[in-house]
């Protein structure tokens, strides 16, 4: 029961902290969508980092290291340190400048303006929404599975609440966990929009970074120190050479570098970029992002490697962190704190995704085409709130319907989809010759190649083409289509160039 009390205290503190931010709200739709473009360097770093790092940063990194070994860090973390920061600098700051200059609050507003086409927005909108939804489901289902693992039966012992939840053996059922997580996030996003999400993300990011370090310290102490801990790890996991299902091939390691490009097209990250007070606010985010990744990932990867000498080789990768904590840490308070850290990593992405979908439905569908003047600012905020309630409700229902499906296999495909769309945004920002037909060709080529490989993979899960990540082919298809079709079609008008490129 103690871990549940710790988690309840954490959720209460999160709500109080996020709702406190509403004291700074200006009550306008600009404040609701982009925090009146007033977020400073530290909060921008925390909200961008917290949004980028899902529960995978704690749970997935440990499980993947348990599977693959030390190659996990280079494959997913240090490459992200270089590529994410490049995206923030090359894509984020320029989009922030264009967004501020023209008053944009969504990606699609930018693309519609840049390519001078309403229809292009209607092509891109469903693609972005469909790529975000599995990401939302992974968060809610991940939280439910975490709580079931924490409160479920342990060997011969019954679960934590056998008198309340007979059907799950005493574990808190997904219906309850999903409802609590969705309601807490909905409360502060509904009330404070983008500003509340930024404040909540700051709090949650500090929590999950601290809890990762806490778990690392306590587990290593229990194993007799970091030196003793590594000595009992499997030798095959200390190198990247492929053997015994561990390791990673050189070509996979190389082409995996396309995956972190996904941050360049995340709609929820785009919205965080627009909240920046100034371009200078990005400096800390760009510089500190690789360090923050290191602080979270190195301890978790080491825990995963240590686990190879402690847990059976057929242990579920997603449960490795929880199993190590459960096996080596007896204090229920610490167990509660680490679980709160995992929930913090999940919720710091969920809030931004709920908010961005509500913002997109409001601005890209309902208010699009000069309809904004028909509504007062209060009505616009109410509309966004109603959309957010609808999206949260739909996500909750889908998370229950698909609870037993392996939605986690879709994660890599969501990232691949967003990453493969980056030639579109890079060309739109830096290539004056990029045209609307080129943009259509790029999106269609990317979508077709993505769907082809997705089908080949059996609709989800890890899949490579002779070791090459499919995202590399999708990205190249999108880039080639953009360049070739743009070169053979009429260039954009001088007005469009003047509007989007500093002279």
């Amino acid at each position: 029961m103690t871990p549940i009390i710790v988690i309840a205290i954490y959720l209460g503190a999160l709500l109080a902290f996020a709702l406190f931010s509403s004291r700074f709200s200006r009550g306008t739709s600009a404040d609701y969508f982009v925090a009146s473009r007033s977020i400073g360097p530290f909060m921008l770093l925390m909200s961008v980092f917290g949004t980028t790092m899902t529960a995978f940063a704690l749970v997935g990194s440990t499980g993947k290291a348990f599977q693959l070994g030390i190659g996990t860090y280079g494959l997913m973390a240090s490459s992200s340190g270089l590529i994410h920061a490049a995206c923030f600098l090359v894509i984020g700051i320029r989009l922030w400048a264009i967004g501020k200059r023209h008053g944009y609050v969504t990606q699609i507003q930018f693309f519609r303006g840049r390519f001078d086409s309403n229809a292009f927005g209607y092509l891109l909108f469903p693609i972005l929404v469909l790529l975000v939804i599995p990401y939302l489901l992974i968060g809610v289902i991940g939280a439910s599975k975490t709580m079931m693992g924490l409160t479920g039966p342990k060997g011969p012992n019954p679960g934590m609440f056998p008198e309340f939840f007979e059907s799950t053996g005493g574990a808190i059922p997904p219906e309850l966990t999903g409802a609590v997580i969705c309601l807490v996030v909905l409360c502060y996003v509904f009330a404070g929009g983008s500003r509340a999400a930024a404040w909540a993300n700051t709090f949650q990011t500090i929590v999950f970074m601290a809890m990762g370090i806490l778990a690392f310290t306590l587990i290593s102490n229990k194993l007799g120190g970091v030196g003793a801990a590594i000595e009992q790890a499997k030798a095959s996991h200390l190198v990247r050479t492929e053997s015994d299902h561990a390791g990673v091939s050189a070509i996979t390691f190389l082409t995996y570098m396309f995956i972190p490009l996904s941050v360049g097209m995340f709609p929820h990250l785009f919205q965080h970029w627009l909240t920046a007070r100034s371009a200078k606010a990005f400096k800390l985010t760009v510089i500190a992002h690789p360090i923050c990744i290191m602080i979270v990932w190195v301890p978790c990867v080491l825990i995963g490697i240590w686990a190879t000498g402690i847990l059976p080789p057929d242990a579920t990768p997603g449960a490795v962190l929880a199993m190590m904590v459960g096996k080596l840490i007896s204090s229920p308070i610490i167990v509660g704190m680490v679980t709160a850290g995992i929930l913090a990593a999940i919720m710091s992405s969920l809030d931004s995704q709920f908010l961005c979908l509500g913002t997109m439905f409001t601005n890209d569908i309902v208010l699009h085409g000069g309809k904004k003047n028909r509504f007062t600012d209060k009505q616009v905020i109410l509309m966004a709130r109603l959309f957010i309630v609808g999206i949260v409700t739909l996500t909750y229902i889908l998370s229950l319907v698909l609870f037993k499906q392996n939605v986690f296999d879709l994660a890599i495909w969501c990232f691949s989809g967003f990453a493969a769309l980056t030639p579109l945004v890079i060309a739109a920002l830096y290539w004056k010759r990029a045209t609307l037909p080129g943009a259509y060709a790029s999106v269609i080529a990317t979508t077709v190649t993505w769907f082809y490989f997705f089908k080949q993979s059996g609709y989800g899960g890890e899949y490579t083409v002779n070791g090459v990540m499919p995202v590399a082919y999708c990205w190249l298809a999108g880039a080639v289509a953009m360049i070739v079709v743009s070169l053979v079609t009429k260039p954009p008008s001088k007005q469009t160039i003047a509007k989007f490129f500093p002279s």
Partner: protein
Amino acid sequence: MKPAVLIAIVVFIVLAILHQDVWNWDNADLVFGFMPIGLAYHAGYSIVAASFWAIVMKFAWPTRLEEWADETDDAATNN
């Protein structure tokens, strides 16, 4: 293109190549007695990446872009 931007692009490509770390692929030595060298290399790489971006911020910062962003148009007055 400013020389600083050109240098930054070249260094970025070099960093992307260095990320492959072909030297330590099958080396299981431990650094500081607890960290496999392949992991230590990439942890150090993260620090190098952060330092690289700090230098880029110093010498290739898009100052003109910031001034341009401040010239908001009438439709933007969403700010």
